[in-house]
C-alpha cells in the first residue's frame, strides 16, 4: 500500500444486481493528478462518490497516507460533483464564509477566498445568489469552495463541462498549483485531450473495473503503434 497519498483497495459497490464498481484498486500519490477515464456507465462517478463518503462501498478500503479512512473521509476527500449544486439562497461569498466556518479555517482564509474568486472571474458575482448563477458560475463557486476547504485530496467529476475557455484555463492553473502544494487530485473526464495534457497518470475503467493504469506515455508504449493517441488507446481498450 502506498504510504503517501490515497490508496484504494478492492473497492466494490453494487446497486441490486448491478455491480457499478467491481473490486477497483488504485493509488494516487501526493502531488499527482490522476485521470479517471471510461465510457458512460463505467463506474467513475460511483467511485468518486464512494471515495467522498457519499456512498457506502459494499467492500474494500480507502486509506490516506497509510491510515485507513472511516466516516471522516468526506472531510479529507473533497468532491466537486458533475452537477454543481449550490444553495439557491446563498451568495457566492456566503458559500465561502460557510465553508470557512464549517471547516474551521484559519484567519487568513478571507484573502485566499478573495484570491480564488478573482482568479475564477467571480468577483462581480460575489454577492449574487446561487439561484441566479449560470451552470459555469456554480461550477466555479464549488471549485472555489473546495479549494478553500483545504482538503488533502480533491476530486473533480467532469470539471471542464460548463466552464468557459478562460475558466478552463484557470482551473488547469489551479489544479497545477494544488499539485505543487502536494495535494492529490483525481479527475474524471471524457475530454481525453485535457486528460492527456494534465494527468500524471490515467485509469481507464469499464464496467466498474480498471482496464489499464499508468502514465499516458507508458500506456502508449504498450500499444501496437508508437504514434497512438490517448483516444486510440481508450477506444481500443473499451470497445
Amino acid at each position, binding site marked *: 500500500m502506498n504510504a503517501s497519498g490515497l490508496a484504494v483497495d478492492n473497492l466494490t459497490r453494487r*446497486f441490486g444486481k448491478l455491480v457499478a464498481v467491481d473490486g477497483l484498486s488504485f493509488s494516487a500519490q501526493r502531488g499527482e493528478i490522476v485521470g479517471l477515464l471510461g465510457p458512460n456507465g463505467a463506474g467513475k462517478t*460511483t467511485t468518486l462518490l464512494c471515495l*467522498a463518503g457519499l456512498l457506502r462501498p459494499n467492500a474494500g478500503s480507502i486509506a490516506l497516507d497509510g491510515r485507513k479512512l472511516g*466516516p471522516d473521509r468526506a472531510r479529507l476527500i473533497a*468532491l466537486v*460533483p458533475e452537477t454543481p449544486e449550490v444553495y*439557491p*439562497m*446563498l*451568495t457566492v461569498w456566503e458559500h465561502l464564509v460557510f465553508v470557512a466556518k464549517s471547516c474551521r479555517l484559519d484567519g487568513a482564509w478571507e484573502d485566499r477566498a478573495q484570491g480564488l474568486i478573482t482568479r475564477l472571474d467571480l468577483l462581480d458575482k460575489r454577492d449574487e445568489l446561487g439561484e441566479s448563477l449560470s451552470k459555469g458560475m456554480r461550477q466555479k463557486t464549488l471549485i472555489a469552495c473546495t479549494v478553500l476547504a483545504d482538503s488533502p485530496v480533491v476530486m473533480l467529476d467532469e470539471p471542464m463541462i460548463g466552464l468557459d475557455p478562460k475558466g478552463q484555463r484557470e482551473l488547469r492553473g489551479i489544479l497545477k498549483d494544488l499539485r505543487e502544494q502536494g495535494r492529490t487530485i483525481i479527475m474524471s473526464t471524457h475530454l481525453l485531450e485535457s486528460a492527456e495534457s494534465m494527468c500524471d497518470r490515467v485509469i481507464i475503467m469499464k464496467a466498474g473495473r480498471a482496464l489499464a493504469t499508468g502514465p499516458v506515455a507508458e500506456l502508449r508504449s504498450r500499444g501496437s503503434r508508437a504514434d497512438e493517441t490517448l483516444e486510440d488507446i481508450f477506444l481500443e481498450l473499451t470497445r
Partner: protein
Amino acid sequence: MNALAALGALAYLEWRLAVNRLKVVLHQPGRLVVWGLFALWVLYVTIGRVSRGSYVGTAVFALPHEIAATALALFPALYLALMGFTMARSTLRPPAAFAYPADSRFLCGSALPQQAVAFWLQWREFIGSGQRYIFAIIAMGVGFRGAGASLILIVLTVVVGAGILQMLRLPVFLVAQRYPKARVGLIGGVLLIGGAAALAYPIYAAWPNEGALLKSIPLHAFALPPGSWLVGTALGQWPSMLALFITALALAGLAAVAAGDCYPELWESSVRQYAQRVRLRSRLLGTRAESALPDAGAGLRVRPVELSLARVPAGPWPIFWKDWLALRRSPEASRGAIGFILVAIGIGAVFGFIARGGGTETLIGLGVGLGYAAVALSAQRSVTLAVELRKPMWWLSSVPLPERLATWTLSAALRLTVFVALGVIVAALISGAYAAAGLVLALLPVFFWVGQSVGVAAYSIFPSKGDLRGPGALARMLACYLLFLPPIGIWVVLQFVFGQAVIVSALAACSWAVLEGIGLIWFASTRLAGNGMAFAWAEQR
C-alpha cells in the same frame, strides 16, 4: 470541532438562507404587496383567535360532539399504529434528511461533527413542519373552531405529535443500522399490530350497539401512551405535556448520539427523494436531475413496459398516456398509488362507520367537514409545471397550449378523483348511504377539475413555490369558494325555484363549473404562452 462551533456554523447557514429569501421578496414590489397582505391577514386571524377567542370562520361548522369524543378516544391507538409503521419503515429506509442537494457538498464535506449535523437536520425538519401545521390550523383552518388557550394547546399537540413521528425516523434508522440485534423493525411491527388491534377492538365491541355506535366506542377504547399524552396535552394536562417534551428531547438526543457514520445512507435517501419528486412531476420522461444521478445510485428502478405505439392517442391525449406509463414503469409510483388507495379505503371505512352510527347532525357535520377538507386539500396541492415548461417536447407540440394545459389539469384532477372516489364507495358500502354517495361520485371530477384549474391559474400569477404555498394557497381557497358559489346558485335556482329534477340541476351546475375551469385554463395559457422558461425559473424561488 466542538458542538457549539458546529451549531454556530449551521445557524449561520440557516440565518443567511432566511435573510436572503426575505431580501428577494423585498426587491420585488409585486410579491412584497402580496406577502404583506397575506401577513396582515394571518396576523388578524391569529390575534382574533388567540385573544378574542373568536373568529369570523367559527360559525362555518363544528365537529359534532360525539364524533369529537370518538376521535379523541381512538386517537391513542391510531397514533401507536402510526408510530409502529414509522419505526418499521424507518429501519428499511433512512429519512431524506438533506433538504438541499447542496448539503452533500457543504455539510458532508465539512468538518462539522456528524452528530451535530444529525441533530440540526432533525430540528430543521421539526421547525419546518411545525410552521406548516401552525399555519394550516390557525390561518387556513377556517372551519376549525378552537380559540384562545385551547387553540394554543391544540396547535402544540399537533405540532409535537407530528414532530415526534418525524423525529422518530432518523434515530430508529441509525439504531437499527448500528445495533441490528436490537430488532427495531420487529418492535415497530409489534406496535403497528398492537395499535391496529387497539383501534379495531372498540369498534368491534361497540358494533352490537348499532343505534349508538359512536357513543359506545369511547367506552371500550384504550388510553395508550404516547397518544394519550397528546390527548392530555390538548386538554391542558401538565404531566402529559412534560412526558411529551421529554420524549421529543430524547428522540433528538438519540439521533445525535447514534449519528456516528450516517451520511452515505442519508445522502442516498435524499438523492432518491429529489429524483422521485422530479420523476413524478415529469411523469418519468427523463430530466436533467435524473440523468445526473450516479448510474443506479439513486436506487430508482424502472420496470420494463411493453409498448404498443399504435395505441398512443393523438392530440393532447399523450399526456394521459405518459402518466399511465409513469405509473406502470415506476415501482415507487405504483407503491405510492397503492398507499393512497389503502389510505382512501381506511378513511372511507372510518367515515362509513361514523355515518352509520351517527344521526342527521353527524351526517351534516361530516359532509361540511369533508367538503371543507377537500377544498383545503385542493388549495394546498402543489402545482409544478417547471418540468414540463423546460422541455422542448412540450413547446414543440402542434396542439394549442390551452388544450395541452387543460389535458394536464384534467389528468391531475382525475388522479385525485380516483382515490377519493374509492373512499366514498367504501363509506357508502358501510353506511348504506348509496344515493348520497352516487351524487358525490358524480360531482367529484368536476370539483377537482375546478380546484386544479384554480391551482394552474394561481401558478400563472404566483409561480414561486414559496408564494404558492403562502398567499397562493389562501388565494386558491378563496377562489374555490367564490367559484363554487355560481354552480351552487344555479343548482338551487333550477331545483327549488323552477322545480327541475336533481339530475338536470346537477348537470347545469356541473356544466357551469366546467366552463369556469376552462376560463381559468385559458387565463393561465395567455400568461404562460411564449414565456414558459421564465415561469420555470420563477418556480424554483
